């Protein structure tokens, strides 16, 4: 399956990745190759087969509605590159 540069650009946008022209070209080639390989799956008739969503058979795995102490704010923020006065910071968004 050949994937176009435009599709690569669209995917990169969806995934929030900046790609150089060289990367775009390389990925176009590589992904086309991988998807061609993936087409092997079309040899199988899966029309009556339900997709596996989980390998385990459990269901109704629940938790009781009992509150536990939350983490201190300092722990929550400890790994943030930019934080101030109890909040994470991001550049002001347009919306």
């Amino acid at each position, binding site marked *: 399956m050949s994937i176009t540069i435009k599709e690569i650009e669209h995917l990169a946008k969806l995934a929030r990745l900046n790609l150089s022209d060289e990367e775009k070209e390389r990925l176009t080639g590589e992904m086309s190759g991988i998807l061609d390989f993936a087409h092997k*799956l079309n040899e199988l008739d899966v029309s009556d087969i339900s997709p596996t969503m989980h390998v385990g058979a459990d269901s109704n795995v629940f938790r009781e509605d009992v509150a536990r102490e939350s983490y201190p704010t300092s722990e929550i923020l400890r790994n943030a590159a930019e934080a101030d006065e109890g909040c994470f910071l991001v550049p002001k968004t347009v919306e």
Partner: protein
Amino acid sequence: MSNLYELTAHELADKLAKKEVSSAEICENQFKRIDEVEGDVEGYITVLHDEAMAKAKEIDTKRAAGERLSPLAGIPIAVKDNICTKDIKTTCASHMLYNFVPPYNATVSEKISDLVIIGKTNMDEFAMGSSTENSYFKKTKNPYNLGCVPGGSSGGSAAVVSADEAIIALGSDTGGSIRQPASFCGVVGFKPTYGRVSRFGLVAFASSLDQIGPFTKDVEDCALLLNQITGHDVKDSTSLNVPDEDFTQYLNADIKGMKIGIPKEYMGEGISEEVRNAVLSAAKLYESMGAEVEQCSLPMTPYALAAYYMISSAEASSNLARYDGIRFGFRAKDCKDLEDVYFKTRSEGFGKEVKRRIMLGTFVLSSGYYDAYYKKAQQVRTLIREDFGKAFEKYDLLLAPTAPDTAWKFGEKSADPVQMYAADICTVSLNIAGLPGMSFPFALDKNGLPIGVQLIGKAMHDGDIIRAGYALEKNSAYTKTKPQLGGAN
């Protein structure tokens, strides 16, 4: 008199119990070894000397006071750097998490809390790769030949156990990432049945495929470490709600009457002759012990690799979307707006292979392609599971190669991803089907590089694998060699 660091965990546990040695002495000796060879092997991202020595002394004090300790208490263990260790840097070998210090422990980290974590090991970035060459920090070398890869993605954990830089280690396996490096480095590597070991605190790559498992020097250590880390966890909804099992009960070599199948699709052209011979040799050994061994078929095998790459990339693309520099980890500089934060951070934070998988995964899930790729792969997954199901109606165990070949030289493998991915062909099916598997270090190739054979079990029959592995260990002519470290290419 061998060094303490050359011994197994059960041997050391014995000495500790008999008060012949202290945990502090063991760890001291372990760090001496690390000092000697880590410069060559480069298996660790973080070595925790001070923390480990403090812990060792603490355990010694507890032991002296008669406190109840786990069977492996005080033993040095290395942990793959994608398993969260509270207050200890956990990087996943990625620039993206170069400074991430988890405020919480993975469940397995809690379960090994009276062992001594001596370091966090190197890996392929975010567990994506088969050689540990994709690490942001360093390349780990194969202790058997420093010019060769240790395998991946848990190359660091495999290498440090192989080089006696750790007594035991933990790794993770999504498509073979424990078994293949175990095979390349000549150690025991075990991937449990999906759901037997909690994934809480394992930085997710592919949620429906990932499992944490042991790297050990022998099968008894493997059973002991499995005891330590398996068990239902309420924090992981995919964790199996089954009673705890004592895997040491399987440490008997009694495999008489066991029906063992060798799937022919795993023994074809793509597998090197030496590897095939090792498998056949193991088969003969099993027969001599009273097992029934014959060829069988898993017709869905050719489809597993494609299904695996579709499913794992899709899940990975979603699991890795949280890396954006806002709450933790690397954040790009000079971001003029929010979009910059996202695009620049992710582009600068992720390596090449990770980006490739994210792009592939995004495609597979995207509008218009979901049915043809992701859904189809999950349907094929059902067929693969049924395939194994049929085989296990007849057989108790399957025997196969772990990898098509032995460790390759750095830079030898082509840059073509399809070719690289083909190295996983013997291992991925187990993750797809959620089955347990072990790589047992059975032989060496003509260049002295280790060859592992793979034992594949029925779901929840991890114990049968322990038994069969133990049988090989106790009866094989292959004595465990140690890598000659310091040796040339």
